[in-house]
C-alpha cells in the first residue's frame, strides 16, 4: 500500500507559548512494496512523520493519503480505526509493551481487539510466531522468561498479527547484539520480499540503509532535505558530514581514499563493492607493471 504526503505540516500545542512546528510542508511518496529508510537527528521530525503514517496524528494542514484514504485536519477520528490496522508501527524497544501472561495471548491481543474471534486470533498467533522465526512451543510461555531478542520478536509478531500492509519500524535493532541485529533485519527483508510488505525504517544505522533500503528520506528541522536511492543520497559525503549524519563505513573509507588521490567512478556503499573496486585497482596496477 502506498502512502503520499501532500504539503503536510504539523504543529504541537498551537496558539500556546509551547507552540512548536515539527513538520513543515512535507511532500513525498512512499511506493507500494518499497523499503524506505528515514534518517535524521533526534528532533528532526522523524517521530512526528512516523505518527502520520497511520493517522496517530492528523496534519495541521495538508493531506496524507494512506492507500485510498485521505487524512486531513478535518478527518473524523471515527474513520481511522481500519487504517490503523493497515499500517502497523513497531515502536522503539517494543518489548517494553509486552504485558500478557503468555506469548500467545500477547500476540492475539491486537486481532481480538479488532474483532477476531479468540480462535482466529489464536491461529494468527501460531502463524505469526513462526513468521518471526520462533517456535510454536513458546506460545504458552511467559514473554518475560524470554531473552531480549526473543521478546522483541514476540512484540513484532503482535504487530504482524494485525495483518498490516505497511510495517513502520522505529529503530528496530537498537540494543541488540550484532547477530541479533542481523537476524531482525533479515526478517524484515524477507517480509518485504515474500509477503509484499511496504516497509518504512527509522534508523541511525547507515549500514542497514545501504544494505536494505531502496529509498531514503533525509529529514532536518521538520523538512525533507534530501531524498532518493541510497547511492544518490550517500554520494555527497561532505554534505552529510556537514549535517552531522554518518555514511556507511565503506563509503567513508572510500571518501578517505579519495582524499589521498584515489579515484572512484561512484562511491561504494558496501564492503563487497569497495573490495571489488580495490581489487580492480590492484589488477590495473599489476597489468601496468608487466
Amino acid at each position, binding site marked *: 500500500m502506498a502512502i503520499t504526503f501532500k504539503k503536510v505540516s504539523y504543529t504541537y500545542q498551537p496558539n500556546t507559548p509551547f507552540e512548536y512546528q515539527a513538520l513543515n510542508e512535507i511532500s513525498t511518496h512512499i511506493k507500494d512494496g518499497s523499503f524506505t529508510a528515514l534518517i535524521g537527528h533526534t528532533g528532526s521530525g522523524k517521530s512526528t512523520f512516523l505518527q502520520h503514517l497511520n493517522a496517530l496524528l492528523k496534519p495541521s494542514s495538508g493531506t496524507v493519503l494512506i492507500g485510498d484514504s485521505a487524512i486531513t485536519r478535518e478527518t473524523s477520528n471515527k474513520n481511522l480505526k481500519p487504517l490503523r490496522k493497515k499500517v502497523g508501527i513497531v515502536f522503539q524497544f517494543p518489548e517494553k509493551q509486552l504485558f500478557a501472561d503468555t506469548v500467545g495471548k500477547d500476540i492475539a491481543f491486537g486481532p481480538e481487539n479488532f474483532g477476531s474471534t479468540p480462535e482466529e486470533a489464536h491461529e494468527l498467533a501460531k502463524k505469526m510466531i513462526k513468521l518471526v522465526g520462533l517456535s510454536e512451543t513458546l506460545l504458552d510461555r511467559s514473554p518475560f522468561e524470554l531473552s531480549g531478542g526473543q521478546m522483541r520478536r514476540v512484540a513484532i509478531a503482535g504487530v504482524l498479527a494485525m495483518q498490516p500492509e505497511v510495517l513502520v519500524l522505529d529503530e528496530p535493532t*537498537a*540494543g541488540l*547484539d*550484532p547477530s541479533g541485529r542481523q537476524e531482525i533485519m533479515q526478517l524484515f527483508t524477507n517480509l518485504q520480499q515474500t509477503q509484499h510488505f511496504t516497509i518504512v525504517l527509522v534508523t541511525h544505522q547507515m549500514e542497514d540503509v545501504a544494505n536494505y533500503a531502496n529509498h531514503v528520506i533525509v529529514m532536518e528541522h521538520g523538512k525533507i532535505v534530501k531524498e532518493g536511492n541510497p547511492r544518490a543520497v550517500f554520494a555527497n559525503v561532505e554534505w552529510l558530514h556537514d549535517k552531522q549524519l554518518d555514511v556507511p563505513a*565503506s563509503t567513508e*573509507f572510500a571518501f578517505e581514499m579519495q582524499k*589521498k588521490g584515489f579515484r572512484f567512478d561512484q562511491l561504494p556503499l558496501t*564492503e563487497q563493492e569497495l573490495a571489488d573496486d580495490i*581489487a580492480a585497482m*590492484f589488477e590495473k596496477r599489476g597489468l601496468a607493471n608487466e
Partner: protein
Amino acid sequence: MNHIIKVSHLTYKYSQNDQPALNDVSFEITDGAWVAIVGHNGSGKSTLAHSLDGLIDFKQGTIVVDGVELNEANVWKVRSKIGMIFQNPDNQFVGATVEDDVAFGLENMAVPHEEIQARVDSALSQVQMSAFRHKQPEQLSGGQKQRVALAGVIAMQPKIIILDEATSMLDPIGRREILGVIKRLRQRLGITVLSITHEIDETTSADEILVLNDGKIVETGTPEVIYAHSELLLQLGLDVPYSQRLKTALQTRNIHTPKTYSDEKGMVDWLWQSLLKR
C-alpha cells in the same frame, strides 16, 4: 603493578539446574587501566559486572577490589569504590532536576551541604553538563541523561567506573559524547574503567580486551591482538572492526594484506603505499 580488581575462580549459577552464567572466571585489572569485556547477549558479561558490585551473591570464587575482599560484611565498602552506569538512561534518573540527580548519592551519604555543592559543580563540569543543571530529565537527550548519570557517579569519587552496556540505547551522537567524556575522565582523574559491551567499535580505546563466551574468558589481549582474530569474533557472534572486515574481503579476492591489525587510517595508508606511491 598494582591490581585494583582481582577475580579468582568465580563461578555463578542463576538456578541449580542451569548452565553456569560464569564458569571459573579469573582475571586481574591494573589500577588506572581501561579494560573492555566483550561478548554477545547471554555470554555472562552483565553477570560479571553485577558480581563485582556485590549485586549478585556468588558462592564460589573470590573478588578483591582495591585490597578489600568482597563479602557480606564488606559489600558497602566495595560499592563505595565502584560507580556503575547501566544501559537504560531513563531507569537511572532519580532527581527532579539534573543537579538534584547528581547530588542524590551524596545526600544519602550525609555529605555536608557545601561539599555537595562543590562536588556537584565539579562533576557537572567534567561531563560538560553545567549549563543544564536546572533542566528536568524529559528535556534531555539519551546521551545527556547518561552524562548526568556519569556525573552522579563521579561525584561519589569512585576508583572504578563500570559501564554496563551504557551506550547501547543511544544514537551515534550520544554514543560519541559518552565515549569522549570517559576518555577525558581517565586522563584527568586516572579512574579505572571497565566497559562491558557488544559494540566492538567501543573497545578501540581500551588497554585490554577480555572476550567472554558461555561464562568463560576465551581470549585476552590488546585491541590489536583481538581484532586480528576476526574468525573468533565472528564465531562468537560479535562484530569485527571495519578495517578487518575489508581486509578479509580483499583476501578472498587474492590480495595480500598486512598480517597485523591496522585501523582505517592505517589501511588507507597501506593502500596508498601499495597502489599510488611511486
